[in-house]
Each structure stands twice: as structure tokens, then as C-alpha cells.
């Protein structure tokens, strides 16, 4: 796997901040490496290992009007991220080594934060034929996924798992049983019944989670479950982990904070796949994140043009942005009210996702590459359309007041934000 960003000189700097637990330290970084950590200073800002986002749509190639490698990694830097993984459902799809090499070359020119690219499991994401996974892996694919759609065929999924022995890469799975999700737009339940929107039932996700866990167990290969949304999925994952299945999972900030109740407003910025579900689902996701059954927070940052998201709810595309609001949203809604310890949140946004994809864990220790984020936990700010580095503004938090902001981000030894 290869993570790349713009070439350039590493920075030397001195950073002062408070660690979780209130100890103030001063960190010296020389040419990108932490050389000294001293117990001194009086800063109120929190210093933590920078974040890792395993699920980002950079929309490049094909929809550079919505996001580019430059704008997406700038958004990541502003959100406190030191590494991100991009999804292959672009146009063309990242299903061949030349496309992947082209993206890696572009990232070396444009990316302000190290970025890795996942490649498709099936050619054109059509679900019929495997991509040349060995070649893609050699070319630097970070992992394999058909994200945006499920791998419909259990047989093809099994072959992909078997082929993992060759690539050594993980499969990241968008779990959706398409004959159950159908043309569903929102969680099937009382809110869908009230609004008349087609329902996408929880079992439309959890049935596929169960299938993929069973296949992973049978083939003894690791899998990563993306953007879990349903209580039943978390239960299935927990049971499988207890049986020894090597499965990791991620959850998005929007699924941790909002429920389908919010969809009553018919705001297209609350439309995403999988949909926001019921309060019991949200609680199960939060419990899973707290206990570690779900080890990673992922934004599923999915930029869409203003034109497309200005359509009526039913006609608007699925997806919301998240890179620039994830920490503040979760800090405000989970940490401040006491639902999630701050150190757990920081772990699930940094080391958790890094481990799930075998990326180096950002660490605050002498000798480590500097991947640091400085956070102001007091500042309140309002999410506005004008405030994004992303090219798109389809945030589920527009107009909302959040607490906590990213003051500075150091990624791979360089100051990339602040």
C-alpha cells in the first residue's frame, strides 16, 4: 500500500499543548520527526495524534467540480487529518493499474495530506468480474472496495476474499442487500411511513453484514465493514468478533449524532446511504464505538454539487460531506454531554482507523514522524457554506453551532493547516 502527498521539505517547529489528562507539554519537531517532548508550557489547547479517515470520496477523476485531490486534502488538513483513504467509485473507476498510477502521480503533485487510494473489487463496480487485484496491489492500492454498491454475488465476494491471500490487502465492504434496500431513501420505520419516502430497512444492511461475516469466517480472511448504520449489524459484528472472525468496522459522525427524525425537514443534506436510522440504532453504534467493537470513525465524506443537492429530497443524490466537521460534531454531541470519553474519541479517529488498514499509527513519542493535531476545545463556531475548503458544501451540519476547532494540523512532518 502507498500513501502519497506533495513532495517538499519537512518542517521544524515547536508545539505547545495540553495532553488528555491535563499535562502541558512542549514538543520539538526537527525535519518532520518528534525529537523532544518536555513537560512545560501553559497552553490550553489540546495536543493529540492527528486523525486518519479511511473513507473519503475525492471525486477525482470525473467530478472535479465537486472535489479534487487538492481541495479534498485541504479539507482533510483543516479537519485535523494526517492521512485519508479515497474511494474508487470515480469516473473512470479505479479498477486498473494505469488509473491508480495516474491518481498517485497527481497526489504527489497536489495532495497536502498523505492519501491512499482504494481500488475496485469488481471491474467497473459491475459486480461480475474481479479486477486485476494483484497488479493493483503492486501498483499501491490501499485496499479493495466496491463502495457505493455492494458486491451482490456471494460467489464473487468469496473469490475476492480468497484472492486476498495474493494481494495481502483487506476488503472494505459496503453492506447492502439490493433486493431489500430497493429504491429505499430513508430508514424503514415510522418516519418513512409518515413521509411516504421509500424505506430502506435495517435488514437491508444487516443481512449483507451477516453474509460477509460468514464468508470471511469461512475463508479466514479479514474484512472491514464500512459505515455501519443498524443495531443488528453491530450485534452481528460483535458476535462474529467473539467467534474470532477478523472483522473491523467504521461508523460515521452523522450516524452517531442524528436519527431519521431529522429527515422530517426533507433537507437533501440529510440524505445518505446507508440512511440515518432510529434512536436505538444510534445508541447501538455509540455503544459499539465506545466498547471498540467498532474501532474507527470514518466520515464517508461525499461531496455533491450544489445543483444536485438543491433538488427535492427524493431526487437528490445520496451523500454528505464531513472532513471539516467530524471532530467538532462528535466533540459537541458526544464528548461534551458525557456520552463518550474524549480519549476514546481521539483513539477512534486516529489509531483505530490506522490499525484497521495497517497504516502507521500517529504517535506522540520521540522518534515518530510528526502527525499531530492541536485542538481548541472552548471555541464555538457556526458551520456555514462559505467556511469549507472542500469544493462542495453539502454538510448535514449547515447552520449548526459546534464546540471545538482544529487550530493546527501537522501531517507527515509538515504543517498542513494553521
Amino acid at each position, binding site marked *: 500500500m502507498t500513501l502519497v502527498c506533495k513532495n517538499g521539505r519537512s518542517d521544524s517547529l515547536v508545539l505547545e499543548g495540553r495532553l488528555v489528562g491535563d499535562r502541558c507539554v512542549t514538543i520539538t519537531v526537527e525535519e518532520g520527526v518528534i525529537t523532544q517532548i518536555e513537560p512545560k508550557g501553559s497552553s490550553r489547547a489540546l495536543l493529540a495524534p492527528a486523525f486518519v479517515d479511511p473513507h473519503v470520496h475525492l471525486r477525482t477523476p470525473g467530478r472535479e467540480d465537486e472535489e479534487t485531490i487538492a481541495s479534498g486534502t485541504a479539507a482533510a488538513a483543516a479537519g485535523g487529518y494526517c492521512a485519508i483513504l479515497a474511494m474508487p467509485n470515480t469516473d473512470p473507476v479505479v479498477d486498473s493499474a494505469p488509473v491508480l498510477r495516474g491518481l498517485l502521480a497527481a497526489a504527489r503533485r497536489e495532495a497536502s495530506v498523505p492519501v491512499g487510494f482504494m481500488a475496485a473489487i469488481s471491474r467497473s463496480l459491475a459486480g461480475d468480474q474481479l479486477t486485476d487485484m494483484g497488479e493493483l496491489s503492486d501498483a499501491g492500492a490501499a485496499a479493495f472496495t466496491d463502495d457505493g454498491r455492494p458486491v451482490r454475488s456471494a460467489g464473487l465476494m468469496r473469490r475476492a476474499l480468497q484472492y486476498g491471500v495474493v494481494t495481502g490487502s483487506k476488503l472494505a465492504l459496503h453492506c447492502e442487500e439490493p433486493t431489500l434496500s430497493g429504491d429505499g431513501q430513508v430508514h424503514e420505520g415510522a418516519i418513512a411511513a409518515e413521509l411516504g419516502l421509500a424505506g430502506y430497512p435495517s435488514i437491508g444492511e444487516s443481512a449483507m453484514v451477516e453474509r460477509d461475516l460468514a464468508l470471511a469466517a469461512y475463508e479466514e480472511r479479514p474484512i472491514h465493514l464500512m459505515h455501519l448504520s443498524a443495531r443488528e449489524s453491530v450485534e452481528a459484528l460483535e458476535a462474529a468478533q467473539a467467534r474470532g472472525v477478523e472483522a473491523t468496522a467504521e461508523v460515521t459522525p452523522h450516524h452517531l449524532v442524528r436519527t431519521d427524525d431529522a429527515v422530517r425537514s426533507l433537507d437533501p443534506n440529510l440524505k445518505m446511504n446507508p440512511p440515518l436510522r432510529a434512536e436505538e440504532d444510534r445508541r447501538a453504534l455509540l455503544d459499539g464505538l465506545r466498547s471498540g467493537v467498532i474501532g474507527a470513525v470514518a466520515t464517508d465524506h461525499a461531496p455533491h454539487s450544489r*445543483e444536485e443537492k438543491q433538488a427535492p429530497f427524493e431526487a437528490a443524490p445520496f451523500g454528505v460531506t464531513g472532513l471539516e466537521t467530524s471532530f467538532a460534531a462528535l466533540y459537541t454531541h458526544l464528548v461534551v454531554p458525557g456520552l463518550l470519553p474524549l480519549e476514546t474519541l481521539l483513539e477512534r479517529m486516529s489509531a483505530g482507523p490506522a490499525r484497521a488498514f495497517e497504516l502507521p499509527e500517529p504517535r506522540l513519542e520521540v522518534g515518530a514522524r510528526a502527525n499531530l493535531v492541536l485542538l481548541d476545545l472552548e471555541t464555538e463556531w457556526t458551520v456555514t457554506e462559505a467556511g469549507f475548503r472542500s469544493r462542495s458544501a453539502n454538510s448535514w451540519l449547515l447552520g449548526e453551532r459546534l464546540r471545538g476547532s482544529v487550530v493546527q494540523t501537522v501531517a507527515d512532518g509538515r504543517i498542513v493547516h494553521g
Partner: protein
Amino acid sequence: MKHLISIGDLDREDLERILETARALDGIEGNLPTLAGRFVVTLFYESSTRTSSSFDLAARRLSAGTTSIKASGSSVDKGESLKDTILTLAAYDPSAIVIRHPHIGAPLSVIRYSKAAVVNAGDGKHQHPTQALLDLYVMREAFGSYEGLHVAIVGDVLHSRVARSLIQALGLVRAHVTLVGPPSLLPRGVEGLGCEATSDIEALGSADCIYVLRMQRERMESAYVPSLREYTARWGITPERLRRGQKIMHPGPINRGVEIDSRVADSPDSLILEQVRAGLAVRMAVLHELLAADARVPESAVVA
């Protein structure tokens, strides 16, 4: 009240006031000057006979100027977005825009991009509030009051904006509602709207009013029910399934021989044509409510 998007926008007082205005306007001959000099646009992205014609007529009867735009034959055919169509119409400064659209949430776009009062004449499977208001109007006329009223809504509730609006409206007046239909066409969680749901057609027995929903052929293709024949056999409303005195309603257009037997549709207990007639008065009342500044019944109407 600025817009009428959903029955959820109303409280009982609003509903009673609109129906009271409708009663005062019902049967008046000639035009009232209430909205003279005002301009009402009806914008229909889906075919409609009774709704579009009754809104148009309602606006004229209140002396408003009207223009009717249908999606076919307009710039919509040329790929114009809803936003741009609304911005264009808004440039003429209409007092109200009445919209029917296949997509849930479309009326909210009209609110966002114009200053007009917006009336939802049906958005996808979401809401059709003026239909529910006219249905309640007809029920009050037929039963005298909503007190103790039991309405059975029969058929494809899942895909019906009419059913959704009606369930909410009947909830406002505290009527008892039972949904009856194939299990696949009763939305999961629908009891949360304050009604009962069953697939047993026998449940019709205790209802005062049977409200029959239109059964659409395309539902067969998605295998919601095995066949129209099977639907009709189990849930079709025939004289044999009714007891004397039960009133029959249907939002139209009806599929004779599918969801409703011709003998039922044409029986003296059928209120279907009453519903059509009430549509005009109720839509006049809605425009009056939204556009007449003092929102009181015009004196000329009271005199009449």
C-alpha cells in the same frame, strides 16, 4: 399560516376554520372579489384532472388571475431544473404557487426560491393536503360530526399520499382510523401515525366510512401483491363486504372492478361525486386562508 405543504402544518383550529370558510363559499354563484388583482400559478409536473382544474377554477372564482403550467410542453421538457422554473415564475410575483410534483420535498424548493404562498397539490407519495381537507368536509356533511367517527382506509397505503394526509387529518379531529390492505402495502411503523393496521378485510365491519384507495397496476410489477385478480378477490370493495349505511369514498380516478365494484361506486351510499364537488369550495377556502389578509369569511359570502 403562510403555506400548506402538509396536514402536519395545521392544528385543529386551522382545519375547522378552513372548512368553515369552505361551507360559507360552497354553492355561491358568480365570482367573489376577494383576490382581485392577485395572481395564482398552478404548476403540474404530473397529470391531473380534478385537482388542477379545481385549483384553477377556485382561483378564478376568487377573481385572481391564473396561469396553468404543465411539465409537458414547458421548459421542463428542455431540462430546466425545478429551481430555475421557480425562479422564472417568481419573477412575475405570483401571490400563490400551487404545485404537484412526483418528488417528495418539491414544494419546499418552491418556498425556498419564491416569495409566494405555496400550496402542495401532491408531492410524490408524501402529502396531498387539500384532498384530505375536502374529504373531511364531505365526512362532516355526511355524518354531521367527527365525534365517534370510524373510517377504514382500504388498499395501497404504502404508495398513497392521499392516505398519509387523511390519516393525519382524521387524527386532528380524533376520528378512529383503521388501515386495511395487503401486508406488503401497509408501511412498517404506520401505527405511529395514530391508527390501526390490519390485512383482514373483516375489519371493515365496524367502520362508518370506507375510504377506498386507488390500486395501481405498476405495483403488481414490483410484486407487492401476486396479481390484480388476487387483490380484488381479497380486498376489493363489493356490496357483499359492506353493511347497509356504510358510506363509500374514493379520491379518484377509480378502477372499476379492481379496488371497487361498480355497484358500490354508483350506489346511493357513495360520496365520490360529493368529494369532487367539495374540491372547489375547499380549494377556494385554502386560497382564501393563505392569501386574504384578514383571513375572515368575506361578507358577500356570509350574505349569500
